[in-house]
């Protein structure tokens, strides 16, 4: 209301109003649509002018509205309305009364559902007022998808690199078996499980016999071949949950979960020795090796100590060596008391 007395109401022609608010509706007091903005008209192929507003649109919020009288009472409030027919496009909006009993003016925008509305109705830049940020919302949606894609790709690469590094840190490169570090970790785990309850295990130390001779006479390539073969043999006698580790040049340690029967241990050891003794062909020349084995069992100890277990298995292994190789010795707990 300026200083020159009575304010004149603004007058605007339909085309200008359409450019300013491409999704407006002018509704008469009787509830009929008198005019519609060009974008909303494009969305309703059957035409809007002359139809009853509440038959084309459903008012959902702030409350469901069935009569024009109720709708007029919502003037100035934030509205949520949708098309009654598919695709049931949703809008948010506001209605304001017009002067001189001309009804109400409703202005609509897509709000957060912009992308699906724009897609369903094939809208373009020209369907939006320059002040409308819907296009920027679509731009951001698309940018976000691209950046999220880059982030996901980066995460996948990092995850693969991490898995690769962990694998290498715990794996012997030549044989693919667990390495010394992995064995130490596994030993801590099985000892903790054994302490917690009824989870006994056997620790087997395998040392290849005559391996040095293969290396010296046929070279390191032959030695590597024999080691890979030995790894395959050891791997074949354990279950998935057991552990096979290469802990030195030609030394291996195996952890067997739940193995307590000494006859069974001797049978497994005999199978290992038998299979290792089958010659491996290297460029037409046979490589012959065997193995000496020492074993200790978790059940022998009141207090389980990883170093003690490894040392006792090693002592049993040397008993096998002294006894003529190609055999298995199980640690005798009474020896420790002598």
């Amino acid at each position, binding site marked *: 209301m300026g200083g020159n007395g009575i304010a004149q109401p603004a007058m605007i022609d339909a085309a200008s109003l359409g450019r300013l608010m491409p999704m407006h509706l002018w509704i008469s007091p009787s509830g009929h649509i008198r005019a519609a903005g060009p974008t909303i008209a494009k969305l309703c192929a059957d035409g809007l002018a002359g139809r009853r507003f509440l038959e084309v649109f459903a008012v959902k919020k702030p409350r469901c509205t069935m009569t024009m009288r109720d709708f007029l009472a919502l003037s100035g409030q934030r509205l949520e309305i949708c098309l009654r027919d598919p695709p049931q496009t949703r809008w948010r909006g506001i209605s304001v009364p017009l002067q001189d009993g001309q009804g109400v003016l409703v202005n609509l925008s897509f709000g957060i559902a*912009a*992308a*699906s509305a*724009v*897609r369903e109705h*094939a*809208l*373009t*830049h*020209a369907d939006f007022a320059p002040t409308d940020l819907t*296009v*920027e919302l*679509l*731009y*951001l949606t*698309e*940018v976000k998808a*691209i*950046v999220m894609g*880059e*982030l996901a790709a*980066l995460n996948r690469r990092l995850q693969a690199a991490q898995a690769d590094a962990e694998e290498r840190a715990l794996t012997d490169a030549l044989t693919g078996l667990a390495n010394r570090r992995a064995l130490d970790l596994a030993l801590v785990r099985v000892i903790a499980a054994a302490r917690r309850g009824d989870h006994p295990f056997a620790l087997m130390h395998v040392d290849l016999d005559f391996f040095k001779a293969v290396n010296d006479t046929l070279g390191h390539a032959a030695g590597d071949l024999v080691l890979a073969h030995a790894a395959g043999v050891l791997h074949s006698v354990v279950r998935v949950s057991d552990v096979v580790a290469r802990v030195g040049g030609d030394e291996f340690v195996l952890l067997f979960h739940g193995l307590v029967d000494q006859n069974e241990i001797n049978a497994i050891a005999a199978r290992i020795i038998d299979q290792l003794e089958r010659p491996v062909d290297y460029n037409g020349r046979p490589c012959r090796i065997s193995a000496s084995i020492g074993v200790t069992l978790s059940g022998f100890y009141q207090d389980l100590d990883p170093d003690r277990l490894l040392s006792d298995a090693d002592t049993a292994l040397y008993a096998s060596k002294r006894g003529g190789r190609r055999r298995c010795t199980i640690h005798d707990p009474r020896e420790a008391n002598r």
Partner: protein
Amino acid sequence: MHGLINRSIQRFLHDTYGGDTWAQVAEDAGLCVQGFEALLSYDDALTEAVLAAASIRLAKPRDAVLEDLGIYLAHLEPLRRLLRFGGVDYPDFLQSLDELSHRARLAVPGLEMPEFTILPLGGGRFRLECRSEMAGFGAVATGILRAMADDYGALALIDAVASDGRCDTVSIELLEARFAAGRGFDLAARRGL
């Protein structure tokens, strides 16, 4: 320089001239062949080293390499779409270049882009000024503007005219805004795109 820009240069060299050329450029620039990560940041000197190495390997002036980079970028569908959000037609798009660095920062906070200023000179002529710490964005813009003129179906003469190190200037003469049909653009990308 942001990894996105470095990664763009890498992809351009790799896709246009092949993996071997990229590997050589990377080696000359003292970079591993995996190159840049899009979401990390790198020293500007490394970007310069890659551009210098590419210029020598391809036996092309640095600005010609950068102009080709601009053309390549505008042809990548996701980027073409983002550029098309700028305007309904080519003149509208030109007017939106002022907002390009703001749009880029909306997309990726921390992405340093040159400040673009578009000056309408009348008679369909415009001048684009690119202000940046690193020279050469004018050449990239020249390539992008040429490719986008084709995309919108506009006929325009675009030339990099001057550079004083901090500010590159590009001249644009729009002969016909709707010369050809141009390529399509739907505001809302189809699902799965």
